[in-house]
């Protein structure tokens, strides 16, 4: 079916946009600065740039009515800055990105949210945290990541994967490199693979009391930290995670225009999909308005839209609430929605409520990482090195 020319979704008026952005600006100013302007000029510049960057994007999201376009800019910047900041930090602390056995025994491995699915069963069964990280304090402690995860899950459900995950911006960014996909047809059955990986890692973590996914599969070790290659087994593990990074985070997103790592591998994403059931926000399709042009199916980065979705008026459980389908719908039939309310109902109000929750979470969660990344880049420009 031939599609109509996409209509620009209606944003808010200029005055209303300014008022809404002002609210965000006050909150972000307080949270980014934590009540004080850095004395270091680089720190001050980083703070101002981050503040302007966040609030400009929020203004554009509200004013243009386009969610995904500007979210993706912030989200991908967050991912890149994490890499800059994390690697610099590791080089300062250890002199290398590789992880020595001594650091593992000293429980100094930074904890990330991808480990959470593997820790839950052992915690429940044995009251043991099977990760050699710091429980409280230190860099990326276990307790702080759990608190962030619980908060984001309650607020966003699987929206975490498009609004909070500091890795997701990588394949999201690469999926936007080409204008049209080279590989167009993907069997939708592959969307079940992350659930199988989740089942596998949760059960094997319980059996062997070791974070199987981190050891064997996590592609993001390629840009954060990894075990020093000291044995054949670690060499095999390294080949696997580097291959997964190149394949699922770079090459396939470019070729398919989908977030292939998030859609076809990530066990954390699978677990977050289940939390979509308890989250108050979802994405719904107004069946009255929908003309079944299937534009949303074509653009969804995680194959969460299908013809069945259009019939039922709702997305699959794997929806990340990125807003791409909403931006692309020519009839404005897709919108953010609060469970238990009418469809379409007050769609602009629902959108604003979701955006305040999601964008503020993203902005506050990312602010120090982005600021640190900017400081590192300024250091690189002025001194020739990103580390102290």
């Amino acid at each position, binding site marked *: 079916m031939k599609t109509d020319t996409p209509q620009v979704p209606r944003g808010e008026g200029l005055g209303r946009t300014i008022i809404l952005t002002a609210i965000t600006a006050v909150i972000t100013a307080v949270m980014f600065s934590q009540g004080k302007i850095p004395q270091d000029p680089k720190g001050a510049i980083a703070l101002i740039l981050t503040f302007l960057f966040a609030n400009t994007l929020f203004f554009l999201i509200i004013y243009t009515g386009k969610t995904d376009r500007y979210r993706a800019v912030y989200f991908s910047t967050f991912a890149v800055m994490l890499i800059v900041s994390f690697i610099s930090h590791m080089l300062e602390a250890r002199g290398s990105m590789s992880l020595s056995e001594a650091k593992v025994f000293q429980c100094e491995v930074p904890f990330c949210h991808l480990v959470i699915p593997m820790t839950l069963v052992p915690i429940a*069964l044995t009251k043991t945290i099977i990760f050699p990280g710091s429980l409280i304090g230190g860099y990326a402690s276990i307790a702080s990541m759990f608190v962030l995860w619980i908060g984001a899950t309650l607020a966003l459900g699987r929206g975490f994967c498009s609004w909070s995950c500091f890795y997701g911006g990588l394949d999201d960014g690469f999926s936007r490199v080409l204008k049209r996909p080279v590989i167009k047809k993907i*069997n939708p*059955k592959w969307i079940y693979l992350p659930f*199988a*990986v989740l089942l*596998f890692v949760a*059960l094997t973590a*319980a*059996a062997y009391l070791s974070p199987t996914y981190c050891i064997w599969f996590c592609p993001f070790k390629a840009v954060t930290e990894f075990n020093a290659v000291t044995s054949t087994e670690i060499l095999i593990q390294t080949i696997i995670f580097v291959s997964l990074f190149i394949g699922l985070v770079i090459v396939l997103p470019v070729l398919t225009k989908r977030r292939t790592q998030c859609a076809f591998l990530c066990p954390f994403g699978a677990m977050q999909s289940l939390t979509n059931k308890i989250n108050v926000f979802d994405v719904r399709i107004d069946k009255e308005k929908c003309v079944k042009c299937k534009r949303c199916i074509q653009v969804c980065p995680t194959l969460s839209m299908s013809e069945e979705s259009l019939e039922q008026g709702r997305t699959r459980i794997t929806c990340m609430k990125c807003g791409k389908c909403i931006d692309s719908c020519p009839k404005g039939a897709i919108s953010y929605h609060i469970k238990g309310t009418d469809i379409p109902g007050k769609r602009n109000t629902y959108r604003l409520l979701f955006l305040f929750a999601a964008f503020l979470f993203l902005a506050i969660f990312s602010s120090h990482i982005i600021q640190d990344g900017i400081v590192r880049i300024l250091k690189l420009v002025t001194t020739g090195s990103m580390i102290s």
Partner: protein
Amino acid sequence: MKGFFLGLSNGVTCVAYCTPVLIPYMLGEGKGVAQNFVTLMQFLLGRLAGYLCFAFITWLIGLSIFGGLGSKGLIIGILYIIFSCLMMVYAFFRIDVPCAARSIGYVARKIRVPLLIPVAAGLLSGIALCPPFLLAMTDAAGKGSLSYSLFFFFMFFIGTSVFFIPIPFVGALRRLQALQIVGKMAAGIVGLYYLYTGIMAVIAGAEGI
């Protein structure tokens, strides 16, 4: 009764080692709770057969079969490889629900798989995967009588089996048809993981001889 209590005290570990096999299989089959209990019985029967078989061997030759560290790794590695092949054949070649990999689906139609997968899985997982089993074998090997060895392993089996009772209740989820695909895919990943484990154990075992 020592075997029984040893089984009871190690049952959680036993279950933890067997659930990566049992749960993907049960989900993949998509059967109800009652039918899953039948599957569990088949699995446990296989495990019991493996235990008794080893009870006999333990009595016959004592610990000499595992006397050298290398030969132990070799035997367990080979069992892992057989076991992983079983899981992968189940996951990729016995397909009632369409698999995402279509080319595998074509091959699947050409191949018949052994019907008694749970029995074989129970037999192999009991022997190859279960660390408490090795503990029990060490204890039984120290005694001289066949009846003691058989009884010890039987009681050990009873003690550990108690912990398997909740597993068939995954059948309550069978109306979620997607879980069948998830179960098959997970069985395939488990198979690949054990294949790697087996190959590494064989290499290490061969070097150790």
